C-alpha cells in the first residue's frame, strides 16, 4: 500500500516552523499587481516591512536556524559570551548575494555580523536610538528610514509612491489585525507560526481547523529574549505541562508590534506615520529608559486578568534581559519562572515548568 503523505498545518505542535515556511521564501508577494520577488532579510521589530515592500522588495523576517544554519553561510565562531540568537542572525550576513538589514538594538547584534559579512554593500546597518523621549531621537529614526530607502533604491529598488505606500501599509495593518483577532482561537505555537508566515510572505495563512480549538489550560505570558527556531519547543513544553502561552511578549513577539497605523496620519504623511508607530510605541527592553516596557507589562497583566504567571526566557549572555529579572520580580505581581535558553537542559526545563505550574495552581 502506498504511503499516505500528510501535510500538517503550519504551526502544528512539534512541526518545525521554519521548515513549514521555507518553501514560501521564493514565492513572490503580490501587491497591487506588482510581484515582489527579491528578498530583503531583516530580524528587528524596528525595521518596518512596509518600508521594504514599498521599495519593491520582499521583506523576509528571519526566524533563525533551520534556515541560516542549514546553508553554507559563514558563521560567527562559537565563543564564550556570544548570544546564539545574534550569531544565527549574523549568519545571514554570511550568505553571498543576499540583502540584509541589521538594526543594532543591542551590542551583540551590533557586533556579531562584523566578522561574517561577505559583501558589505549588501548589508545595511540601521541605528535605532536607545533614547526616545526627545524629538531628536524621533527625527533620527525617521532619517534612518530615509537612508534605508535610499539604500534599497541603490540596490535596484524603486522609490515608493504615496499610493503604493498606503496600500502596503493598509495590507500589513490588516494582516496584523487579523492575527490579533485570531489570537485567542489558536494555540500559541500556531500563532507564532502564522505570525512568522505573515512576516515572511506578507499574507496570513488560513486558520486550519486542527488549530482552532481555544486553549483551556493555564494561561501564561512568555517574556524575554529573542527566540530561535530551536527555542520554540518551549511552547510545546508549556502545553505538555498543562498550560499555554496566552501572550508572547518575547522580543519579536506581539509586544514588539507597532501600534495600529492611523488612516488619517497615513494619508497626511505615510513615512512619518510609520516612523511614529514603530519608534514611539514599541516597548523594547533596550530603550533608555525602558519604563515603557513596564507600563506595557502592567497593562497586559491588568487587561489579561486570567494570566497566572510569567515564563521569563533569556538567551545565554543576553545582559539586557537578564539584568531585568529582579526588577520584574518586584514590579509585576505575577509569579515568574526564569528559564535560561540554550544548552541541553531540555528535560530539566520541562520539570521546572511542571513544578512552576503546580506551585501556581
Amino acid at each position, binding site marked *: 500500500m502506498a504511503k499516505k503523505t500528510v501535510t500538517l498545518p503550519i504551526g502544528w505542535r512539534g512541526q518545525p516552523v521554519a521548515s513549514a515556511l521555507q518553501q514560501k521564501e521564493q514565492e513572490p508577494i503580490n501587491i497591487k499587481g506588482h510581484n515582489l520577488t527579491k528578498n530583503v532579510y531583516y530580524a528587528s521589530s524596528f525595521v518596518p516591512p512596509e518600508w521594504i515592500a514599498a521599495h519593491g522588495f520582499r521583506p523576509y523576517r528571519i526566524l533563525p536556524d533551520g534556515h541560516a544554519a542549514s546553508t553554507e553561510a559563514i558563521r560567527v565562531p562559537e565563543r564564550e559570551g556570544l*548570544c546564539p540568537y545574534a550569531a544565527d542572525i549574523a549568519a545571514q550576513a554570511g550568505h553571498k548575494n543576499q540583502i540584509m538589514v541589521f538594526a543594532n538594538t543591542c*551590542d551583540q547584534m*551590533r557586533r556579531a555580523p*562584523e566578522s561574517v559579512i561577505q559583501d558589505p554593500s549588501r548589508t545595511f546597518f540601521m541605528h535605532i*536610538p*536607545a533614547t526616545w523621549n526627545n524629538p531628536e531621537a524621533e527625527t533620527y529614526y525617521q532619517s534612518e528610514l530615509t537612508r534605508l530607502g535610499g539604500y534599497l533604491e541603490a540596490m535596484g529598488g524603486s522609490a515608493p509612491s504615496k499610493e503604493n505606500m498606503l496600500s502596503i501599509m493598509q495590507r500589513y495593518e490588516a494582516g496584523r489585525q487579523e492575527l490579533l483577532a485570531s489570537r485567542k482561537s489558536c494555540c500559541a505555537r500556531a500563532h507564532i507560526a502564522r505570525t512568522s508566515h505573515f512576516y515572511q510572505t506578507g499574507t496570513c495563512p488560513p486558520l486550519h481547523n486542527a488549530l482552532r480549538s481555544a486553549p483551556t489550560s493555564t494561561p501564561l505570558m512568555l517574556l524575554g529574549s529573542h527566540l530561535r527556531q530551536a527555542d520554540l519547543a518551549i511552547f510545546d513544553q508549556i502545553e505538555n505541562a498543562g498550560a499555554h502561552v496566552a501572550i508572547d511578549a518575547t522580543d519579536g513577539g506581539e509586544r514588539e508590534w507597532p501600534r495600529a497605523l492611523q488612516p488619517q496620519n497615513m494619508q497626511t504623511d505615510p513615512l512619518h506615520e510609520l516612523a511614529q508607530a514603530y519608534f514611539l510605541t514599541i516597548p523594547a527592553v533596550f530603550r533608555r529608559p525602558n519604563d515603557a516596557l513596564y507600563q506595557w507589562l502592567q497593562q497586559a497583566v491588568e487587561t489579561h486578568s486570567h494570566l497566572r504567571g510569567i515564563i521569563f526566557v533569556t538567551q545565554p*549572555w543576553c545582559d539586557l534581559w537578564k*539584568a531585568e529579572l*529582579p526588577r520584574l520580580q518586584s514590579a509585576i505581581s505575577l509569579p515568574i519562572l526564569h528559564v535560561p535558553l540554550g544548552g541541553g537542559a531540555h528535560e530539566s526545563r520541562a520539570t521546572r515548568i511542571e513544578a512552576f505550574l503546580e506551585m501556581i495552581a
Partner: protein
Amino acid sequence: MSTLLQKLTLDDWNEQYATLHQQGMKEPFYGGPLCRHVLDGDTRLEKLEFDPSPAALRLWNLLLTEEQRLHTARRQGRHIVGTMKDLGTIPVLAHAFPNILPFYPDGAWWTPCIMEMNDALLHVADRLGIDETFCPVRAMLAAFVTQKHFPIPDLLICSAGAVCDDFSAIVQRLHDMGHPVHWWDIPHRREPAPNEVSVQLPGGCIAPQTQITFVASELKRVADALSELAGTPLDLNQLTATIQRINKVRKRLLSLREKVFLASHSPLPALELHIAEMLSIHFCSDLTETEAVLDDLLAEVDRRINTQQGFTSTDAIRVFWVNPVADLRLMNRLENLGGRLCGTDFMFTHAIDPIPESPPPLEALAQSALADPMVGPTQDRARRILRDARTFAAEALVICRIPGASHCATEGPQLADTIRAELGIPCIEIEVPPIEDALDGSIRTKLEALLETARSNRRDR
C-alpha cells in the same frame, strides 16, 4: 652606559618615602605615604611593584584620594555629576560649569581588584542578580547600594546606543533603584555613503556629518541638564576655553606615551603608564592636579631618557596592549616576564586624541565622542591599533579579554586576525579577572609563550 631601574614594593616605598622627605620632597595636599591606602582597604597595593619617583608617588596619591576629593567638593557645595560610559566626553562639558565636578562611577570597575574583593562589591552585585556573566563594572552597581565609596552624584549622565550591553543593563537597574539617569544616544559610527557629507574625526576615522549633528544635539540636551543643575546657562566661550585646556592635558599624555613607547629602555613602568592614561578620562576629579602630575611625569621621563635609565632592558619584547586589565598586577607581570608596553588601546583612545578646536564646541565634542573606538566597527579599531603598533614597532599583541563583556564575545579574533595578517606578529587573547592570582599559572604561561614567540621571530629576522 644605561642603568636598569628597580621598582619598589610597598614596603620599600615606606623607606623611600622617608628618604625623599629627608631630602625635602614637597607634596601636594593629598600627599602622603602609599601604605596609608592599604589601611583604607586598598590591599592590592601590597602585591604591586611601583616606580620609585616622587612623580609616580604623586600620580598614585592623586588616583587613590579621588573619593575623598569628591566628598570634600560636595561639602563645599559643588554639584557632583556621575558621568558614565562615554569615557572622556561629558566631563569636558561638565568642567565648563565652575560649580560642577564630574567623575566616572565606572571607576568602580577596578575596586574589586584594588581592594582585593574585601568590600564584597561583587557579592553584592551577585545578590542584585548581576552575576559574573556581566563585566566587572557590576561593582559600580553595588557601590551605589553600599554607598561606602564615592558620594552619590546629584545627576547621572550615561551614554546609550552603541555601547556595551553590560553597562547599559546595569545603569538601567540603577535608574530603577532611584538614581535617575539622563541618557544620551551615541549611534554606531558608520562609514559614510558615497557623496554623503563626512568629517574626519580625531584619530583618523571618518563619520557622516548627519551623525555628528545628531550627537551634537544629544550633547545639547546634556548641556541643558547640566545648566539646570548648575543654575547657569552653558557659556560657549567657557566651553571653548575648557576644550583648549583639556587639549593641553591630552597633548601631555600623547607626548608621555610617545616617549615611553619609543625609548630604548622603558622610562616609566607599564603600571604607572596605565594609570596615567586613565587620568585623561576625567582627570581624577582635579584638572589642575592632573596637569601638575603629568608635568612631573614628563620631566621624570625626560630625565631618565637623557640619562639612559629605564625599567626594562633593551631586549625587552615590545608589546601592544588592547583593553584595560581588570587586575593591575598584570602590568607588573608583563615586565617581570621580559616584556614592555609599546602601544596601548585601553578603550579610550578618543580621550587622548585632542578635540578639534575649529568647529563650534558642541560639534567638536560630538566628533570626539564619535571617535570612541568602542562605538564604531571593530575593523576601525583594528586599523588604529595597526597604525600605532607600526609606529611603536610592536613585536607582539595582547588582547585582554574582560570577563563577561559583551564586546569581548567577538572583537578579539577580529583584532588579532587583522594584526597578525598585516604585521605578522604573535597575538594572544587572555581573560583577566579582577584578581588573577588563581589563574596565575595559565596567564603567565600564555604570556611567556607570546614573548618567546616574539623573541624567536626577532632572531629569525
